[in-house]
Every structure is written in C-alpha cells, then in structure tokens.
C-alpha cells in the first residue's frame, strides 16, 4: 500500500505543466474581457439590489445623493448592457472566433487587451458621471457624449480586430456563430451612433446632449435605438453563443443550416423595426406603430427557426442537460429566451399593451431577457470557458451548482413576482385607481423581489469566488490528488 501511494505521488508536477501548455490559443484578450465582466456582474447586481431595497424602504440610503434611485437606475441598466453583458460577449467572442476560423488567437490579442482596459475605464467614468447627475436623460442612452464617443472608438477597434481575424482565417467556410460575430458588432456600432445622435454633442458637460430637436422624433429614435441594443447585439450574440456551446458540448453537428440562415436574416429584417412598440399609446404615427406590431410578431419566425434548430441538435443529448453544467445554463437561458419572445410578441400589440404598459410587467419582461436569457447564458459560457482558458478544472463543481440554482430560482421568483405586481398595477389603473394608491398593495411584491434579487447577487458572488479560486489555486493538482485518493481507495490490494 505504501509503495503504491508513494509511486503515484511522484507524478503531478510534469502533468500540471503539460495541462497548462495544452491549449494552442493564447486567449489573452478573452481572459481580460471575461474577468472584467465577472466583476461588473456583481457591481451591477448590487445596483439592482439597492433599487430593490429602495422600493421597500425609500429612506434606506437617504442623504447619499449618488445612491438615489433615479441615478442608480440608469447605472444599473447601462451597466447590465454595456459593462456586464457586452464584456462577457466580447470575451466569449474572442475565445470562440479563433477556434471557429482556425487561427492562433485573435488578429491582435494585444489590441483586445488594450480595448478591455479602455472599456473598463470608459464605463467607470460613465458610471461616475451618471451617479453624479451627468446624463443625457434618454433612457438606455444616458451616457454622456464623450463617453459615447469613447465607446464607439473602442467598439470600432474591436470590429477591426474581428474582421482582421476573419480575413486571416484558415477554415474558409464560416460557421453560423461567425456570421453573427461579424454582423452584430457592425449593427450595434451603427445603432449606437445613430441612436445617441452622436453628431449632436450639445453642451457636453452641462445640459443634456445627443438628442433630436423634435421631441417625438427623438422618442421614436430613442426607442428604436434602445430596442436594438437587445435586438441587434444582445440577442444575436445569444444565438451565436448558443450555436457554439450546444453543438460543442454535445459533440453533435448543428441540426440545420437552412434554419440558421432563416434565424440570421429574419433577425436582421424584423428586429430592426420593432422599437416603436415601447410607445404604442403615445402620440406618434400610427403607421409606425403598425410596423412595430407586425415586426414584433414576424420576429417569431427567426425565433422558431432558432428554437427548432437547437432542439434538433439537442435531440438524443438531453442526458447531458443534467450532467453538464454549461449546457444546463445554456439550455435554461434558451428556454427563457423562447419565453421572452412569446411574451414580447403579445406585449407589443395594442390590447395587451394597454394593460401592461408602464407597469412592473415590463420590468419583469426586461429581466426575463437580460437576466433569464442573457445573464444565465453568460454564466454558463463562463463556466465553460474558464477551465479551457486556464487549462485547469474549476475549483468547485458544487459552487457551480449553487450558482446555477441561486440564479435560476432567484430569477424565476423575481420574474413571477414582478409579473403579478404588473397585473395588479394594470388592472388597478384600468379601474381608475391612481398610482400612489396601488403602491401599498405592491409592498409585499417588492419585499419578495428584494429577497429573490439577493439570491441573484449571491450567485454572482459565488461565481467570483469560484473563478477566483480556480485562477489562484492549483486546481489541476487538487483534482489529481482527489482522483488518486479515490483510485487508492478503490484500488485492489497489492498482490503479495
């Protein structure tokens, strides 16, 4: 027995070194974007928790101007989209693109790293601006003009990096995900520049900038832009990442090339025109509302194409849903993504919109997309990528399980509570009860939302711990020790 254990204990060192060298991809840019995003996730989650607390006790942070609800809310929204999700998406993109087009890393890993730091700095300044009352005052376009410009410059550098990587590819045909990796950043650059009226700086540090002079035209532009943050960036990237993760983890080819074509072109044509459904009862042109309503329903075409494609790929692989955590995250996000589209299609038509608009139902819907679909997918992708990037297993599988259940249960509760609160508000308002009288009916919902929200924050912290411990401890060695301990325990006694 002593001999056996002595002989196995000698092996570890060379094997660990080999494991870390195994990947031909540097993943340096990916690492910077991904690790930044993990930190941002918890920060923006905490912003959300501050908001939830203020719904329960508005006096909670009384006297601290930068924790005021009206300043934290834009920071939360912008942070989720531009800090957490965008950094996570670029990290995933910089990881997946070289693997899909057959290059050793991105065209310039260094450029990717510089952009990651610049992005962090840009958003940090932007958020300080928002918290001190420097805002453009347009929903989802709050970041002030200099930040907008910085964002677009970094964004364009990323586009250069992506296009250059594609142009030096060694695998000529490009996979579905790569279509989105090429098109989606281009879409968003155009969307962001047009939507923030970037050619209209206004008073840069004083009065709100970046808006059209005519208020209603500005509203039309504002909501066209805001919806396309989701429609042309967050959603296509969800598709791209799902198209990568599901076939990769299940080791199954994608079910249908044709369906992926439909999902790509359908998204390009139908998503761009839905923005006006945010202001369906406002005094804007009716024909535009009609386009928005029809587009919102036509969106179901690419959504179903994507759904069928992924379900087809998953056929026969559902056992891995239970055993493989990244896949479980991805498919949970996939389910929420499907749900958010069905829900959104109904929300975008007049009869339903009359009931739910301005209520917490819309807040629930927004979280179904950004938290249920994009964030849960992001957590899964990080769970998948971190071991690959660092060439060693995750520190703790059970922490990953905790993360999954905290965020899934937390989000499901959060969503259900806000949906119910939304109906409560909608029906009360229909009866002519004014907003302030409904507030005390919502108190219980707000408390529940805070508790579920805390679970979501906790899952982000669990992720930080797990990823941090993976990086800073030798998990490969730890895993080997465990394996040997098990092997030893079950090993047959040495032959005498």
């Amino acid at each position: 027995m002593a001999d056996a254990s002595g002989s196995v204990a000698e092996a570890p060192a060379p094997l660990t070194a080999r494991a870390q060298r195994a990947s031909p991809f540097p993943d340096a840019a990916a690492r910077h974007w991904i690790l930044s995003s993990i930190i941002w996730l918890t920060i923006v989650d905490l912003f959300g928790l501050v908001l939830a607390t203020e719904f329960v006790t508005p006096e909670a942070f009384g006297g601290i101007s930068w924790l005021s609800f009206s300043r934290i809310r834009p920071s939360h929204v912008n942070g989720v989209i531009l800090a957490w999700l965008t950094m996570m998406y670029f990290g995933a993109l910089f990881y997946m693109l070289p693997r899909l087009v057959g290059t050793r890393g991105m065209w310039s890993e260094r450029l990717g790293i510089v952009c990651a730091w610049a992005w962090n700095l840009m958003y940090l300044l932007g958020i300080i601006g928002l918290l001190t009352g420097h805002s453009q005052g347009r929903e989802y376009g709050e970041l002030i003009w200099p930040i907008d410009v910085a964002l677009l410059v970094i964004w364009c550098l990323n586009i250069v990096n992506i296009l250059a990587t594609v142009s030096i590819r060694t695998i000529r045909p490009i996979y579905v995900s790569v279509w989105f990796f090429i098109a989606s950043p281009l879409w968003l650059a155009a969307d962001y520049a047009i939507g923030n009226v970037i050619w209209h700086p206004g008073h840069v540090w004083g009065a709100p900038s970046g808006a059209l002079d005519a208020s209603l035209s500005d509203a039309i532009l504002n909501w066209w832009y805001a919806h396309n943050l989701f429609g042309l960036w967050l959603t296509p990237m969800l598709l791209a990442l799902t198209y990568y993760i599901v076939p990769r983890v299940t080791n199954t080819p994608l079910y249908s090339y044709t369906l992926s074509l439909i999902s790509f072109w359908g998204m390009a044509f139908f998503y761009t025109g839905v923005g006006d459904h945010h202001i369906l009862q406002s005094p804007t042109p009716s024909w535009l509302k009609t386009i928005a309503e029809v587009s919102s329903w036509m969106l179901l075409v690419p959504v179903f194409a994507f759904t069928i494609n992924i379900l087809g790929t998953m056929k026969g692989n559902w056992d891995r849903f239970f055993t493989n955590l990244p896949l479980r995250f991805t498919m949970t996000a996939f389910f929420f993504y499907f749900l958010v589209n069905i829900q959104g299609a109904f929300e975008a038509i007049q009869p339903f919109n009359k009931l739910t608009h301005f209520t917490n139902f819309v807040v629930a819907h927004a979280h179904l997309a950004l938290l249920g679909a994009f964030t849960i997918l992001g957590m899964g992708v990080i769970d998948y990528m971190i071991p690959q990037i660092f060439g060693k297993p995750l520190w703790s599988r059970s922490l990953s399980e905790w993360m999954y259940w905290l965020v899934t249960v937390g989000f499901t509760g959060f969503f259900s509570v806000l949906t119910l609160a939304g109906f409560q508000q909608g029906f009360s308002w229909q009866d002519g009860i004014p907003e302030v009288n409904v507030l005390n009916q919502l108190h219980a919902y707000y408390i529940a939302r805070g508790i579920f929200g805390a679970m979501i924050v906790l899952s982000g912290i669990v992720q930080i711990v797990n990823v941090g411990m993976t990086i800073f401890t030798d998990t490969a060695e730890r895993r080997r020790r465990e394996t040997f301990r098990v092997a030893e325990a079950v090993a047959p006694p040495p032959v005498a």
Partner: protein
Amino acid sequence: MGTAASGRDGNGAPPLPRGWVRHPRERMLITPFVAGLGGLVAFFVVVAIVVWLPIHTFDPPPSADWAPLSSVAVKGRNLFAQNGCYVCHSGYTRPQDVRQALYFLYPKVSQPGDFWGSDQSPNLLGTERTGPDLSQESGWHPDDWQRAHFYDPRFVDPMSLMPDMKSLFSNTQVDQLISYVEQRSGKSGLLRYAGQLYAKHVVLVNQGFPQPYTGFQGAHKPIVKANEKGLKPPSAQLEEAPNLSQIDRSYWLSGNPLPVTTENLNRGKEVFLQRCVGCHGLKGDGKGPAASFMSPPPADFTDKDDACCGGDTGPGDFYYRILRGWPGTAMENFGDRLSVDDIWRVVLFVKTIPNHTLNKNHLPTPGDYIVWQPTKELLAWVKTHQKLANNVSFDKKQSQDPFVQEAMRVFPGLAPGDSMKLNDGKTELSLQSAAAGIKAVFEDMLNRAWSDARARGEKLPPEVMKEIPPTVPGQQ
C-alpha cells in the same frame, strides 16, 4: 463535388440530414462579406423605413395648448432629465388614462402638437409609472407644497416611494425644478398655475401671512405666523367670507351624511394617519414635518372651540376641501385617491381630535365627537348669499371665458354678482377681479416664456398661436 455527395467535405463538416443530396453550402453560401455587408444592407433598409421616414415626415404643428418653457424652467427640465426623474414618471397621458369622472386625474390626452419645440428635447416620455404621469401636473400643487415634497416626499404624502431630493438639489435648483413642473403642461397647465398663484395671493393677503420660504429653507425655519395688524374686515362682512368663497356654497351648511359610529371614526383615524399627518402633524396640531415649508401653515384641529362653534369649519366645508383641495394653500385634492365615504369618515374623525383621539391607544368613540354649530353671523351670511329662490345660487352655467372658468374653479363659492373685500379691508374679491388677476398672471408667464424662448434662439410658431386662449380640460 464528390465530397458533398458522400456527406462530408474536406473540413470534416458534419454529415447531411437524411434526404439531402447536395451540400447546402453550394447554394446558400454565406461569406464574411455577405454576412457583414448584407447584414448592414438589411439594417439600413429597415432604418430608412422606421427611422429616417418618420423623422422626416412626422412634423405635427404646435397644438393650441402648446406653450414654450421659460429659461428657468428649461434649467429645471435639464435637472429632471439628468437626474433620471423620467424612470418613474412618464411624460404623456394615454387615451385610457383620462377618465372624466375622476377628479383631477390626467385631465386630457397628450396630443402630438404638445411636444413641439426644441425646449422639449430630449424626450421624456418614459416607460414606467412608479409615480404618476407628470405631463398634466402643472398647477395642481402650489410651490410651497412642491418644496416640502421635493425635500422629503413623505412629508406631504406618507405613502410615497419617491426618493428625497434634499441631497440632490440646492435651493436654487429645486426652485428651477418646480418652475419646470409648474410650466410643463402647456397653456392649460399655465392657467391652473395662474389660478393657484392668484389664490395664494388672496389667501396670504386675507390672512396676513408672509410669502413661503424659497428653496429648501423651510426645513430650518420656524412655522410662519400671521401678522394680523392690518387686518380689518369690513363691518358688514363675515370675517370668514373670503375663505367661504373657496368652497362651493352648496356645502356651506351641509351635515355629514354618515352616522357617528366607532367604525366610521376608526376608519377616519386610519386614513388620517395614512395621508394627513405629514402636514397636520401626529397630534393634529398643524405642526407636521412639512408645516414649516408652508404659508399659510396647515390647519390646527386641536381647538375645541373652533371645532364646535367657530366660523366656516362645518363638515361640508371640510369635505369640500379634502375632495377638491384649497387652491392657494398647500391643501391638495384627495378626490382621486380617497373614496367619498372615506373623506366623510375623515371629516367625522377630525371633529374628535380636540378630545385627544390621536393619542396612542386612544380609539375614537362617538362620545369624542364634537357637534358643530354654525354661528349666528354665519347663518345670516349664508341666508343672504345662498338665495334658494329659483335656485339662483346653484346655477352653475359655465362661462365661455377660460379665465372666468378658472376663477370659478378657484373660488367656487363666489356667485357672478358677488363682491367682497378681503380682510385687509382694501382688496376686492369677485369673480371679475379674480378672472382679471388670473389673466394678468397667466399672460405675464406666457409672455415671459415666449421672450425667453426667443432669447434662446429657438424657432417659435407665428405670434397668433400665443393669442389662442387656454382651455380648461377635464371636470371642473
């Protein structure tokens, strides 16, 4: 293409689905060029339809109700935008929001022309209503109410979830913000605000109170006191007559339709504690946290004499003031928030406050209720002013003149022929003088806003638009 027929190509692509004979890539190849440029073409085609087209074709002319913002209000609007007020307050009313049957709740539907002019940029339409819509807010509350509310919203509405603004704004900034709130609803809002300002003038002159403190100064000052030195009501005139002129005369002597029961009194106390204590105080002595912002200060309910025998404080008067508010004071209308029965119950309860029913653990009983007796003077005054013959006092024919309409809204107790002096013995109060005063305030504010907009170099509609008289939307 032999590899395609076998189902695999040189790159180790997956086998074809069953039934496919040709590799799809031969027919539907997507290159990076197609994905990028094709994607952008699709994008810009739709952008041309849903962005370029509406922006270049949708240009509604200013509505008759439209008015520019004064330069102070523009500063307030910037503060509103930069501090994210729009995340809880929408900036337009929808058709389904407007219910004529309800008091004061969104009197009109927003029209495209209401948003004309570059002082309305950026848009503040909003997507959520945690608080009420503010597009029709102008003029419902006077400035001193707004100041207390911005300092701490729970001061005036204990049920509010709004964050306090005392840490966000300076004294000057909060007055800019109030200026925006009071001017944002177009001409109809300006008219309401003019009525509010004129009524404030009348109330202060009549009761001898100074102007309220500006900015947040009220938080650190004592409650204002009346200077009654110069107050000498004309001898033939009831002292409370100017106050009564702000109450519809059909309520002057009306009793409470609800019986004095423990249940009614307890519900009244509950509502009082939920809604009234911010200004009127936990003891009902008019010394709530908001009181020092306000001039005139909130009413004191603890005086036994006043509750039984003094002047104009009959149940009907209380009811009317809770229902419709008291323009010129910080008393706002609760008609959209409380049911009629609940208002009457609060009225019942208020008449028990002198017997310490607001003390902890003291539940009001019918024994605490103080029965109100109108004074002889009041009865005589009412007799001469509530002429029941031919129902002449109750004839509410609406005037066509919006300024007279507004005067009738603010002074519903004045009949067309009535004329009286305020308690200073000099200032006249009649529907005509009130309408003229409101018109002067309105036109002054409108002219100043126009000249401000011209000074800012904004495009303005033809001058005739300014001359279109305001309308008084909603129920009056």
